[in-house]
């Protein structure tokens, strides 16, 4: 006989295994289909995947680069997952991330010049990162407010905001914020001051404290969602806005707050890329993060820890792909195809369940709703 407590632990363990089963099978299936595609275009799938794994995990440097790639994915994946929890679909992580990066870069290189003094890193780094967070939050709060007060669907508005952000960023990086270095021909900002730079963890490796911060933020997001009143209210609005209204929750305010926090996380992704890795913002570096973030949030089932695992997987694939292309001449873009296939099999879990003969779960999670509501 098991005690009640043991039974609870067993059930919880089974729950975790059940939750992991479909994503893991989805990844395996996507890799098999991806392998068939590589084979179809005349490549060697085994050699390609071997190079991919070596490139991602084969050496301390490879591991460091995987962590570097994963960092923005964790932040941006958390951003999309957070919005999902509130019943909102934030396709605008890309624009929020770009503006977060621009804002952090501006504070990073211009603030010491404006003030005419040397800043302590303990003041300068939080200011630069904070500005990035703020920019992302504002950029996401706009479609949130439009949704709350006019009913305009956030899916189209966040996409439109992406293109608007792209135009604004292009304007700034080609104009007022362009690196004045006479040798510079590309659209990028000047390098940020030394006092605004987050240092690497180990000498000679690029992995930086931003990665550790990303892991801490994942725990923080989990804490907000599961242990605070705010999180409970956001989840209630996400599960059933009508019920939330009757429970006395200000649904309109919650929509805006959810989008703002989601955007803040995306802005943080951009700010960390600038302050901890590139030390400047360059046009075009952020392209594709928005859709990758959606795939990561879905693969992680919107659970902060699931998002971390999914982000590390995606980071590892992106990082390993460079070696794969170098060794086997298979274009890195195959990774996008595999990621789309993973997303396909996670979204349509019925396909995976059918292939592997797994029973369906009792409850289905509703992530988004149509234009009407």
């Amino acid at each position: 006989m098991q005690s009640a407590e043991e039974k609870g632990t067993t059930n919880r363990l089974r729950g975790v295994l059940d939750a992991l089963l479909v994503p893991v099978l989805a990844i395996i299936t996507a890799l098999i289909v991806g392998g068939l595609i590589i084979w179809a275009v005349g490549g060697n799938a085994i050699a390609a995947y071997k190079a991919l794994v070596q490139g991602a995990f084969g050496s301390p440097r490879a591991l460091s680069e995987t962590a570097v790639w994963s960092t923005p994915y964790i932040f941006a994946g958390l951003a999309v997952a957070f919005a999902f929890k509130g019943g909102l679909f934030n396709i605008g992580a890309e624009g929020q991330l770009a503006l977060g990066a621009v804002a952090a870069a501006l504070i990073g290189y211009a603030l010491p010049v404006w003030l005419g003094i040397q800043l302590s890193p303990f003041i300068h780094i939080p200011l630069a990162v904070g500005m990035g967070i703020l920019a992302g939050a504002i950029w996401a709060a706009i479609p949130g407010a439009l949704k709350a007060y006019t009913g305009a669907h956030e899916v189209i508005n966040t996409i439109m905001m992406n293109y608007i952000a792209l135009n604004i960023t292009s304007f700034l990086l080609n104009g007022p914020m362009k690196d004045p270095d006479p040798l510079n021909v590309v659209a990028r900002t000047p390098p940020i001051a030394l006092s605004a730079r987050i240092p690497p963890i180990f000498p000679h490796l690029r992995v930086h404290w931003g990665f550790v911060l990303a892991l801490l933020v994942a725990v923080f997001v989990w804490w907000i969602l599961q242990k605070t009143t705010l999180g409970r209210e956001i989840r209630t609005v996400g599960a059933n806005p009508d019920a939330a209204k009757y429970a006395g929750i200000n649904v309109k305010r919650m929509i805006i707050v959810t989008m703002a926090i989601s955007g803040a996380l995306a802005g943080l992704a951009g700010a960390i890329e600038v302050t901890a890795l590139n030390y400047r913002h360059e046009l075009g570096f952020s392209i594709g993060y928005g859709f990758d973030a959606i795939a990561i949030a879905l693969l992680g089932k919107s659970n902060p820890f699931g998002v971390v695992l999914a982000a590390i997987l995606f980071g590892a694939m992106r990082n390993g792909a460079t070696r794969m292309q170098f060794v086997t001449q298979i274009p890195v873009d195959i990774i996008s195809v595999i990621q789309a296939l993973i997303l396909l099999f996670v979204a349509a879990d019925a396909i995976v369940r059918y292939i592997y003969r797994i029973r369906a779960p009792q409850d289905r999670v509703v992530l988004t709703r149509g234009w009407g509501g």
Partner: protein
Amino acid sequence: MDWRRFTIIALVIAIMIGTVVSIGLSQNPPLVIIVSMLATTIAVATPLTLGALSGIYCERAGVVNIGIEGMMLAGAFFGWLGAIYMNTVFHFPAMPSLLAGVIAAILTGAVFSLLHAVLSITFKVDQIIGGTVINILAAGITGFLNRQMFFGAGSVFGGQVPHSPGVLPSIHVPILSSIPVFGRMFEQQPITVAAIILVFVTHLVLFYTRWGLRTRAVGEHPRAADTVGINVIRMRYMNVIIGGCMAGLAGGYLTLESISSFEPLMSNGRGFIALAAMIFGNWTPFGAWAAALVFGAAQAMQINLQFFRALIPPQLAALQNSYVVGLSPYLLTMIILTGVIGRTTPPAADGKPYEK
């Protein structure tokens, strides 16, 4: 679609044309500028019009399709690939190659929309997520094949982009195109002409045929439709695939009619703007076309202002900045979606899977 909304659309287009006319006045006679603006507007609105029609077929049948962007991108790539294959590998002349490209583009749209139909109708996947899957998949496949086939060493085309068969030639509409000055408006390329014809055809199909009545029934009240013996699943599948063909053709416009090359992610948000046009047009073909023309006019303004860049007065200095004009269609979309220019009603069962 009410007259008030058409009036607003006409007014917005008139303001945009008026701006360009007043700026270019000292260099070109107004009539020439107006006709040139209108001709460009009609042409560049084509992918938006077709994308909006695609959305109308899907959503009138009750399936939300935000994968139009991806279908367009895939149509653009495979249409272009089809034309190049016929021309370079099988040595067909330019014209048949381009037509084969158009067919390839349409079929690509159909294949991708079939996937969307399977996901959203059969597997009842959240339709917005299904559409996102289509978008990511299309971006991945086109990016991968583009690099693999044209830039990879040892690939079909030996690591270089082959000479393209050019773009589809203009059709001169008889009589109308011989009118002095205004005739220019009636010299349009075939996909543009097809898009306009399809607007009328879609209107007739949707509101004056049994098929259209059934489509709308399935999108408004699927259970009632089912009760009277309409096959809800089949109607939804067919309409989503027809919609996919339109989106594929829109992609064909990009690589076979507008310019003769492919660039990764070249659909550049047109699929999403098309959805906004569909919503602003209140899910009607003429309304959606009118809305697409507004976006077309915004783009035509951007193109035409480049010619008159030096003439822009200091009061309108913002227009000199291509990024300010460049973001205007997106801003316009957001303003339209707020409903300040009139509320819209989607089909009642839009986005809801049908459970028997």
